[in-house]
């Protein structure tokens, strides 16, 4: 009898705990349903207001009328990003920004009463975009404090978001075309959707240059003067001949085969994808042939970009002659803050290299559904159009900013010399490069195509694929896994 009683008690306890579990979760569901309802109402109201505002704009015809933005209601400004570059710019250059932690920009801060919160997800393995894909579509219905107000995108996949309703046209934020007159045209082209709406702004321009190791240049060419070096790398044939010289001196020409990829891929005549079909441009094929030769001759390695083996060349022991990159690579990625790196000692030089190119760049986009539209608009204005702030960015961070007249003036001014480049002022080179950048051949698939192509070809350079065609097949397999809608 005792046993039975015990078992009754035990099983009651168990079943009860099970039910309790269900019960509490139901409660939670009810709660969240209630919150949803509340949020819905609020959102509806907000949307109505917004619609009214849009109507008003429409009424004001095509003139660049001031847009009446709904008053900011958000207490938290949520910014999605993949590293601390933008966070640092905001911390250092946005007037009135109080950082929570002066050494860690991603810790956020305060602008007036609004708390600034960064959500940083690494770009690796597409994690950053997955996060955006999961969050942005539901942004309008998210709880007020969780609403994404602003997110950052890179050139390689900008079109993916620009061509959707997930980011707001900057015109709807009240930013007029006339305010953006000084920006480089390409930075606007990249963020313009198929209907001609501009949907994001950047504070930087990313024309690339060849960044060379001055020590190596002195040793091999007898001089580290940019003109002397430029003569040695003026076109691809000379570049290859120089690579042989470098090898004899114990230097790798570039860290890896992938370093030169952008110089070829930015100078293509066909985009990666045309009407859903994958295209291999002749210039891409030219990169494969040139890189295979470089790899076979031991002029460079075959490791992935951003790997530890790639960045060994940022230090003297890495014995790498040159990297290809824009201003952000020089100031942000080449370990300039680390004692003992070449950049720290100002040991790099810059010259134009065999071909012009651009790489990356960060654009600021306003997320649809933001409850801090005025603040977002102001951040965009301050960082991308305010000349004083922008020249400050150049001075403080050696960035190349998106302001043509200011940059052209700065190119003549020795006070803008880059310390990492041993006092050289590369801005004139960047200016010339930025004018030439054309983005007519970008697609929303560029990132996947670039990554998978480099990866498949690395297999070819290493000899794991016997022929180019085998490697190409591997590329097609990988790319159709990523984008089932494409054919080849």
């Amino acid at each position, binding site marked *: 009898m005792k046993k039975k009683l015990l078992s009754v008690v035990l*099983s009651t306890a*168990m079943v009860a705990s099970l039910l309790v579990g269900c019960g509490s979760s139901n409660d939670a569901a009810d709660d969240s349903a209630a919150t949803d309802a509340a949020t819905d109402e609020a959102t509806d109201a907000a949307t109505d207001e917004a619609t009214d505002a849009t109507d008003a704009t429409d009424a004001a015809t095509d003139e660049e009328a001031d847009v009446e933005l709904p008053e900011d209601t958000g207490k938290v400004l949520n910014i999605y990003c993949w590293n601390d570059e933008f966070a640092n710019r905001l911390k250092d250059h946005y007037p009135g920004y109080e950082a929570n932690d002066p050494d860690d920009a991603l810790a956020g801060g305060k602008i007036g009463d609004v708390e600034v919160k960064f959500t940083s997800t690494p770009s*690796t*393995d597409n994690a950053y*975009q997955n996060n955006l894909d999961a969050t942005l579509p539901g942004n309008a219905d998210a709880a007020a404090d969780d609403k994404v107000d602003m997110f950052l995108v890179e050139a390689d996949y900008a079109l993916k978001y620009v061509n959707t309703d997930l980011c707001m046209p900057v015109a709807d934020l009240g930013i007029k075309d006339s305010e953006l007159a000084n920006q480089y045209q390409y930075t606007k082209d990249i963020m313009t959707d198929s209907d001609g709406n501009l949907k994001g702004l950047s504070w930087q321009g990313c024309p690339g240059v060849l960044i060379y190791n001055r020590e190596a240049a002195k040793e091999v060419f007898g001089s580290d003067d940019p003109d002397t070096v430029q003569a040695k790398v003026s076109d691809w044939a000379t570049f290859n001949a120089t690579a042989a010289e470098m090898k004899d001196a114990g230097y790798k020409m570039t860290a890896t085969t992938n370093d030169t990829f952008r110089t070829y891929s930015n100078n293509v005549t066909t985009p990666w994808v045309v009407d859903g079909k994958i295209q291999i441009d002749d210039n891409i094929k030219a990169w494969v042939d040139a890189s295979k030769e470089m790899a076979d001759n031991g002029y460079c*390695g075959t490791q992935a970009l951003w790997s530890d083996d790639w960045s060994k060349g940022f230090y003297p022991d890495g014995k790498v002659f040159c990297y290809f990159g824009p201003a952000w690579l020089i100031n942000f990625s080449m370990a300039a803050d680390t004692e003992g790196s070449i950049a720290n000692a100002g040991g790099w030089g810059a010259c134009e290299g065999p071909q012009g190119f651009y790489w990356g760049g960060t654009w600021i986009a306003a997320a649809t559904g933001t409850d801090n539209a005025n603040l977002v608009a102001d951040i965009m204005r301050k960082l991308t159009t305010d000349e004083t702030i922008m020249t400050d960015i150049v001075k403080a961070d050696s960035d190349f900013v998106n302001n043509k007249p200011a940059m052209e003036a700065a190119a003549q001014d020795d006070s803008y010399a880059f310390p990492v480049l041993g006092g050289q002022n590369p801005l004139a080179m960047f200016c010339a490069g930025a004018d030439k950048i054309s983005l007519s051949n970008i697609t929303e698939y560029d990132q996947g195509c670039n990554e998978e192509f480099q990866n498949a070809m690395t297999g070819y350079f*290493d000899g794991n694929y016997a022929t180019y065609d085998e490697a190409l097949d*591997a590329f097609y397999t990988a790319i159709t896994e*990523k*984008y089932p809608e494409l054919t080849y």
Partner: protein
Amino acid sequence: MAKKKSGTVLRYNRWGYIFLIPFIVVFIIFQLIPLISTIYNSFFEHYFKNGLTEVGPTFIGIQNYATLFTTGDLPKYLGNTMIMWIIGFVPQILLSLLLGAWFSDPSLRLKHQQFFKTVIYLPNLIMASAFAMLFFTLFSDGGPINSLLMQMGILSEPYKFLSHAGSARSLVGFMNFLMWFGNTTILLLAGMLGIDTSLYEAAEVDGATSTQVFFKITLPLLRPILVYVMVTSLIGGLQMYDVPQILTNGQGNPARTTMTLIMYLNKHLYSKNYGLGGALSVILFIVTGILSVIVFKMNQASEK
């Protein structure tokens, strides 16, 4: 009287069912429903264009299976998985048997057994991803292993461990071996300690050598545990994912020779391709089932 007794048994049995409820509920929610929805999804074309624009779901019958078998490299990835599993499993089971035999042998009187058991189990406590990152750094082209080998004069230039199929697969196998041999040892040891010691004493009296004891007494009596270890390891091996994924950055380099079935499945999840992913999972489910039955039958047959 008899009737009353069976009634009591029935009523008493009820408690058994009640105690089963939590398991059944969890099983249905977290296993059965996902399993059925996976099978259901595998008959649809359903993915997201570039992660954002939804395509489908449209019913397309067995089209996904046809695609997998005609265009995918399914056999290759199955082969990769099995090769890397075997590379890890063979040394693992041998070493575990040896360690188990030593630990369970009373005549050896090993000291500090508890300490050693803990130490060999430790690698399993490290996260697979952290372990893979560690190996990635150790064995990178300019990593410490290469510098060590070069300083010792064994190599003249760095060996690209992760750019050669053999070395990359061996690394994956070796890591799985390191991570799991402790676990296997504990399992086998438990099985060995369960064997009646009088059998060993009898064998000793009869003058059997330790080799004979191991092969004639320990191994046959250990069979049920051995089957369990093999089946679980096989299933775990087929689902191998974390180590090669992190070690090769999800690419299965070189030339997809370390790409396992689950890594391949993960590739389809980039575009949230529920259709193809579902079909692949169903195939994996069937393959796992068949292999498990084979291993099970093999052991049963030799028992007779």
